């Protein structure tokens, strides 16, 4: 794509020098951040890495039985925001989160709340499939064992097979549950990680670019799976692929330099964006 002078000026026009330096007030979000029946409610969330502010006053609801996708250029803070939702940011030195994030009406950053069980309620699937170097069975049984979800071997077997079935992996692995999870293909590994997450019965599943390390066929299978999982879980997914956001999500949030610029029905965001930055991004002018 050739860059004309006109486009260049538009781009720099879109980001003033103060914006580029990251020193400005947070921007009001275009669109309605609330939903009718929210599972998670985030209000005015700021995240700092040391002295650098990565997220600026983001408010967003995640509804029951919906898929919310978060899009935006690299470094816009969408993954950082996602990792606030199950307090995975706690494991990073110098990371500070303020504002309020509620799960079913309870503040997850409350001093009295233990982040460890929270992460069983808000599960997470990562960019790169990360099965443990254990058998397929043990990978899925890991969470239930830790949380004591089953009383005997038969129940555990049942839970493992149910989780694998929900993740659409059962038919491919039912004869080799004792083989290492790391021996599966990339797409299978990612579905194994989803099965592992489902096994501890979370309410919300966070997905951080779950398909970016997969080929198109494996991606299609996962996208189908996400759509099925919506029936039982709330899902927040970060993606670099706008087509993927359009295919799997009901609502889309566009992040830009730590701000949540625009939220809306996925359809509306992709056909009729209200903010100029959103329009620039989805039409491919930058990002």
């Amino acid at each position, binding site marked *: 794509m050739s860059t004309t002078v006109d486009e260049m000026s538009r781009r720099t026009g879109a980001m003033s020098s103060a914006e580029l330096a990251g020193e400005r007030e947070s921007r009001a979000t275009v669109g309605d951040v609330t939903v009718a029946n929210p599972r998670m409610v985030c209000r005015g969330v700021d995240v700092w890495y040391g002295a650098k502010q990565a997220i600026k006053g983001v408010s967003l609801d995640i509804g029951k039985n919906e898929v919310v996708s978060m899009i935006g250029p690299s470094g816009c803070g969408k993954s950082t925001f996602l990792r606030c939702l199950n307090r995975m940011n706690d*494991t990073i030195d110098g990371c500070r989160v303020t504002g309020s994030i509620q799960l079913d009406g309870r503040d997850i950053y409350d001093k009295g709340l233990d982040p460890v069980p929270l992460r069983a309620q808000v599960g997470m699937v990562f960019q790169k499939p990360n099965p443990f170097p254990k058998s397929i069975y043990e990978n899925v049984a890991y969470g239930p064992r830790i949380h004591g979800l089953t009383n005997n071997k038969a129940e555990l077997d049942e839970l493992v097979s149910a989780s694998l079935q929900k993740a659409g992996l059962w038919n491919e692995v039912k004869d080799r549950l004792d083989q290492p999870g790391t021996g599966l293909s990339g797409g299978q590994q990612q579905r194994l990680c989803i099965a592992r997450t489902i096994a501890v019965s979370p309410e919300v599943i966070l997905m951080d670019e779950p398909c970016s390390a997969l080929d198109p066929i494996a991606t299609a299978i996962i996208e189908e799976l996400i759509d099925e999982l919506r029936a039982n879980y709330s899902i927040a997914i970060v993606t670099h692929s706008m087509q993927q956001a359009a295919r799997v999500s009901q609502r889309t949030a566009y992040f830009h330099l730590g701000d949540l610029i625009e939220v809306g029905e996925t359809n509306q965001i992709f056909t009729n964006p209200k903010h100029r930055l959103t329009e620039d991004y989805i039409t491919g002018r930058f990002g």
Partner: protein
Amino acid sequence: MHSSTLLIVLLGLMAFAYHFGRKRAISTAGGVARISTLHSLPAYYGLYAALWAGIPALLLMGLWIGFQNEILISIVKSELPPAILDGMSSGQIGLVVNDIKNLASGAIVSGAVTPEMQAAADRYTQLDHIARWAMWLAVLALAVGGMAYAWAKTKPTMRARNRVETIFMVILVIFSSIAILTTLGIILSVLFESLRFFQSVSPLDFFFGTLWSPQTALRADQVGASGAFGAVPLFTGTLMVSAIAMLVAVPIGLMSAIYLSEYAPRNVRAYAKPTLEVLAGVPTVVYGFFAALTVAPVIRELGMSMGLNVASESALAAGLVMGIMIIPFVSSLSEDVINAVPQAMRDGSYALGATQSETIRRVIIPAALPGIVGGILLAVSRAIGETMIVVMAAGLAANMTANPLDSVTTVTVQIVTLLTGDQEFDSPKTMAAFALGLTLFVVTLTLNVIALQIVRKYREQYE
């Protein structure tokens, strides 16, 4: 005309060859303006010429200096009247040759100087003089010849850069083979001495005998020194001391590795890790007297107060101190493999609601286990081969005991005692040291090979 002078002359010649080769390259190209028609930069042609002038000449010089003496001596010997050497053993002939050389260099001579020997010494001096001149001539001729060869070869299409590369590779190969061949030489010498030992003592007695008393009779009429070479007490002693050491080092090393890699804040880690590694820098002899003079008496006092009979040189004292010495070894190797477990494994476990210690126990340690085992095996082979601490703290009595409060001796201690002081080098007593050394070498080599294999296999898992 010393040979070091020749070396300096040769270096000067190389410098000249460099300059000359460079100039030659430029002139064959047709002047500075046409340098770009050369295959390589002119400096490479210079280097090529310098290497050709220097290396063959240096090699010749080295060989000459190495063999000149031998050749001269054999010439002198062959010219001696046969009557002198008649009926002499090889040792006596060596003595005569030595006298001739000493006479020639003006040093003190063992016996009276006969006219024949004076003549031989004069002949030696004369030959030596000739040989020196011949060496100068030959070496310089070869250097000039090499330079001429490079001169003839230099033309714009000659790939001087690639040739210099090849020459450098050959030089590197030669140097690395020096290291490898030295190792091989050591192994072979230990092997052959051991074989000689096994001709006088049966390997069965050595490996399975339970009595170790290596004092052999120096004279036929000596009493009470029959010599028994059953090495089992040494093996059990070594095993016990190493086992005690590992009992100390593995838990402490592993726990500190886990703390340092998983729990310690960055600033604690910045101080704790170097502090731990200081332990590895303490000379083993210091550990040795720490064991003998501090730890052993403390253990003895403690044991006495509990009514136990503790030897003043107990296996326990030596093992404890050796364990402390090995801690940094275990901890730094374990820390490396724990750090090599990808962060994604930790994230995956935390994201399922596992605590830090659950993550460590159920994911990180199992994933790192092969590497940790490899590290421990390396530490074991270190413990088995450790000498100074046991020499000072473990004692000499070859007891076969399972009591760590008793005095034991180890393979390394016995090697030291067998070879220190004045020894005759053909008695089984001395050669037993080689057999012990060979055993030690084989055991530690096997452990190292297994350990490295395990570590490597583990590394591949995440790559």
